[in-house]
């Protein structure tokens, strides 16, 4: 089992957003997170990646950890595409960047400063970073934003390869990614609006009775 | 060599500093000119060979 989530409650900025989330993603599996805007996909992914501590419940991730890619690209405008990738390869102890470059067709852009790329090119570069992390579980937040149709397909292939190699992925998205065997999870039932009123609150100042 | 008297250090160091700085300026200019010229040649060749 690659990622195992049990009755997780997540908060953002001190407010509980989700509660009672449980699911498991095995090796070779992808899970698509669905839910309307503001339902808490980003919040959940940040908790899975270990950036925000969970309010309650637990996340069992593999010991090598999770690779996270959020709404922001995390690129250095002054460094070239190759330098950006090589830096992350160095941080994660990867051996080379060529596989990542090939998977996202970055060969022609290698010498360009990342700041001069178009929105979709930047996104491709930031997705290529996932391949140099060598991590088994990917947590991706709307990875295909501003990608054109060809590049969405390229991304789907990259995810497919990752899964085939025994990886796992949790992907929040609003569009159809074209990943054949992927399970899908709608997080709406776990949001506050759909939860029963609970006697026990996460915020100690919210317990019953006026002050 | 003229006798510089008690101002020898001052005068000589003034001249030395000047020569040094001018040499650095010329050296840097030549170095950059060479580098740019070499790279430009390479770029023109690439361009020539690609068309």
């Amino acid at each position, binding site marked *: 089992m690659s990622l195992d989530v049990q009755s997780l409650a997540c908060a953002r900025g001190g407010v509980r957003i989700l509660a009672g989330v449980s699911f498991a993603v095995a090796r070779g599996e992808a899970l698509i997170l669905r839910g309307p805007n503001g339902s808490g996909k980003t919040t959940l992914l940040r908790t899975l*990646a*270990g*950036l*925000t*501590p969970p309010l309650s419940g637990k996340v069992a991730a593999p010991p090598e*950890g*999770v*690779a*996270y*890619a*959020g*709404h*922001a*690209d*995390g*690129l*250095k*405008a*002054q*460094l070239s595409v190759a*330098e950006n990738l*090589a*830096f*992350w390869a*160095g*941080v*994660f*102890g990867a051996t080379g960047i060529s596989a990542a470059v090939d998977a996202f067709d970055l060969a022609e852009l290698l010498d360009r400063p990342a700041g001069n790329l178009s929105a979709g090119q930047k996104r491709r570069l930031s997705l290529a*970073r996932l391949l140099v*992390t060598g991590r088994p579980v990917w947590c991706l937040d709307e990875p295909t934003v501003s990608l054109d149709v060809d590049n969405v397909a390229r991304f789907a292939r990259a995810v497919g390869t990752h899964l085939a190699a025994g990886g796992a992925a949790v992907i929040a998205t609003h569009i159809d990614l074209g990943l054949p065997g992927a399970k899908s999870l709608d997080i709406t039932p776990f949001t506050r609006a759909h939860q029963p009123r609970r006697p026990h609150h996460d915020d100690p100042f919210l317990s019953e009775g006026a002050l | 060599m003229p006798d510089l008297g008690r101002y020898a250090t001052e005068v000589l160091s003034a001249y030395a500093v000047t020569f040094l700085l001018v040499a650095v300026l010329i050296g840097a200019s030549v170095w950059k000119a060479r580098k740019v010229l070499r790279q430009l040649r390479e770029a023109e060749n690439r361009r020539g060979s690609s068309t």
Partner: protein
Amino acid sequence: MKGLLLRDLRLAIRAGGGFGLGLAFFLIVTVLMPFGIGPETGIITAVAPGILWVGALLACLLSLDRIFALDWEDGSLELLATSPLPLEALAGVKALAHWLTTGLPLVAAAPVLAVLLNLPVPGFGWLIASLAVGTPALSAIGTFGAALTVGVKRGGLLLSLLVLPLYVPTLLFGAEVARRGAQGLDALTPLALLAGISLLALAAMPFAAAAALRVNLR
């Protein structure tokens, strides 16, 4: 970690001349002070060690907000936090990169500026020694401050406010070394104290900074 250090140095150089700028700022503050104080050489000489130290401190201060804020804004900091690199190492490397791009050039340039302020020549050695020993503390403490304010947009002023009080002991002993050196008095005792502060800051700050980062990333 080496990769991170190299990246930071490279960024400092590309993003508009990292090394040169701190230096130029130091020069300008040193030049401005007499404009404010008035041209009498006697007074300027008397306050020279203080001015140089305050100038160095401000040059550090102005570049502090680059330490983490850029990585925060473009999302790299989140990615680094989920990487195998411990946040303590991250903070240490960042402080080192900051010192290399700011503190080190100041140490090298100080004697030249001392001439402008008519500092007596025997004081030069002490001035350099005090800056060499003291600026690492400035970078380390500053890194902690930068980690505290990393979530605040353009928190430059807030950062200065937090960090300045922490800089007081370093400034006190640093300027004291330089002043005593210039007057030919014994400057070893304050230098030893300054070294103590630096060691303390270097040893403790990465942990404090990492803790602050962790809170800010939540």
